[in-house]
């Protein structure tokens, strides 16, 4: 790995440089909340240590995107559409970088999804260090640090940033737009210091090794916990929306008022919503909220792990923050751990 030192002032000129080549999205304040947004100048960036309430998922997998455009009538046609532009995601935290790697796998395996992959190819990812708030539990699911999946990663060491170079693309951009010098051993040591400090700050924790969680969930299928949280769940789908690894979608058509043309769109869907597994005849394969929550939690800790080999919960804590009735995925997991331990003893 190659490490360069970038001063705090240097960041602004680097972002200015990026703005010449890319649409740049970074953490900004929207309605008082930290969120990702498009920026036009480096002053708009809020490079906070705290997590953003929404992940940058929608820049790679938009909430609504056009798959096809069609015309009806005499000159009928159907054309595929790919919406992608050069973009830089600036200030992405480690959990979200892990999430993007998982999304890459999902959309590349089997039949590759050209809409996602083209957008992904045109995306530069610049990560940044963060500190946990009361909901974060990335340490418990091994996503507190990243060693790949980014083009550049900025480690805050107080006096400036140690920039970790992840790819050739990132390297070229850094040399082109920023004045950096080789990071000294002292500066790199500070980087490790930050990591150690961060590791001690977590309030939310899962009380078991991450690698044991798939088996735990597999054994907890009949746990009373699902009924318990199913009773209070509103089935609103907020947890699906804010999750950086929830990728289920619906495909819908829309036509103009004169019915001559329209498009086929992909929009986010959520497995906690009532109609998600309902077929045309009326049969619903996951009727109750308890069943749907169990499905969602298992997708994060067991089902997708079987398929793709990694936990699909990256510990960002967003579903905990957004839940209207305080269903806490880490606490629920801890309850399952407790139950399992009780059964064993």
């Amino acid at each position, binding site marked *: *790995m*190659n490490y360069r030192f970038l001063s705090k002032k240097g960041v602004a000129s680097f972002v200015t440089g990026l703005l010449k080549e890319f649409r740049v999205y970074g953490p900004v304040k929207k309605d008082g909340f930290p969120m990702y947004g498009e920026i036009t100048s480096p002053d708009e960036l809020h490079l906070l240590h705290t997590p953003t309430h929404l992940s940058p998922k929608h820049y790679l997998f938009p909430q609504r995107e056009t*798959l*096809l455009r*069609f015309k*009806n009538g005499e000159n*009928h046609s*159907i054309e*595929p*559409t790919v919406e992608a532009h050069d973009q830089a995601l600036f200030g992405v935290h480690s959990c979200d970088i892990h999430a993007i*790697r998982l999304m*890459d*796998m*999902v959309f590349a*395996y*089997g*039949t*590759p*999804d*050209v809409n996602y*992959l*083209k957008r*992904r*190819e045109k995306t530069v990812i610049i990560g940044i260090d963060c500190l946990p708030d009361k909901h974060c539990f990335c340490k418990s699911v091994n996503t507190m640090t990243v060693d*790949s*999946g980014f083009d550049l990663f900025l480690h805050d060491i107080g006096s400036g940033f140690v920039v970790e170079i*992840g*790819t*050739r693309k990132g*390297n070229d951009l850094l040399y082109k737009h920023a004045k950096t010098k080789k990071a000294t051993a002292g500066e790199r040591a500070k980087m490790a210091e930050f990591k150690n400090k961060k590791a001690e700050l977590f309030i939310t924790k899962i009380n078991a090794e991450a690698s044991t969680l798939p088996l735990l969930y597999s054994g907890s*299928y009949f746990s009373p916990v699902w009924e318990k949280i199913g009773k209070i769940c509103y089935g609103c789908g907020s947890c699906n929306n804010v999750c950086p690894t929830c*990728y*289920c*979608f*619906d*495909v819908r*058509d*829309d*036509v103009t008022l004169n*019915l001559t043309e*329209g498009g*086929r769109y992909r929009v986010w*869907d959520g*497995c906690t919503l009532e109609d*998600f*597994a*309902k*077929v*045309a*005849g009326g*049969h619903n*394969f996951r009727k109750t909220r308890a*069943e749907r929550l169990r*499905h969602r939690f*298992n997708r994060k800790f*067991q*089902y*997708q*792990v*079987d398929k793709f080999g990694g936990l699909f919960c990256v510990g960002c804590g967003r579903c905990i923050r957004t839940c209207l009735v305080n269903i806490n995925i880490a606490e629920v997991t801890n309850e399952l751990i407790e139950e399992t331990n009780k059964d064993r003893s």
Partner: protein
Amino acid sequence: MSLLKRQIKTEVKKMRRLEDEKNISTSQPLNLSSSVFDITSPYIPRLARIERITRLTEKERLFTIAIEDGKALGHQPGQFIMLSIPGFGEAPISVSSPPDNGNMFELCVRAVGNLTNALHNLSKGDRIWIRGPYGKGFPVESLKGKDLLFISGGIGLVPMRSLIKTVLSERLSYGRANLLYGVKAPDEILFRDELSQWERTGTINIQITIDKPHPAWKGHTGVVTTLLPPLKIDETKTVAIVVGPPVMYKYVIMSLGDKRIAGHDIYLSLERRMKCGLGKCGHCQINSVYVCQEGPVFRLSDIRYLREAI
């Protein structure tokens, strides 16, 4: 001398710089090379036309579809396509005809949702769009030489017809064949003419049952499982193929167990909501299994312990 030293120094610097660069990982988690630009959207459908519409019952019609580009659909019995009408959306529909019919194929559709109602309003010559075929169908080759026991409920006969017709077209390759078919009421019996034709030729033994007694019905009454106990089959060489509504499977599987048919000799086709057919959209997921990829046809022994499957 100092000049030489300086030269050496710059050389060393250069080398270090090169070494540094070598250490940069150029590999990304994915191979997102230029090849990404070569792949086409998997959502592009093929244009097709409705050649013929046959009314089967009040709610079901049989659509004969011709693909505009003249190429065959290339499906296997049990596979499905994504059918769409621009403006009304897409839905997964089982192919009801056997393979090898040129660019023509048949869909039997019940008007039950947004898209299927729109389809029923179309007429001969109208355009529709299809993509697929998708999923895994029935294992036609491994059924050869076996006695076949087809058990179908209601609209489950639709995908099964593709397999039955495939079997009948090469009848001598298979052993004895039984079809047990359960429907709610006499007027819901699908493919009436074909059933009696198959029966007449004597190549397949057919028993139809109606759920509840009906004035117009003189045949067997009761759910489809009531046909099983008196049936004489050789459990050592019988393979059961079961397609029906979700509620039917549990009981049919139990009855097949009573007949001593093993789990690896039972094939089922599972229905789920589907939006993409590509193993992405998540709607058809049962635990870690995507029905559109690993199904819709499953061997019972493979999914017996898959929770939520049956």
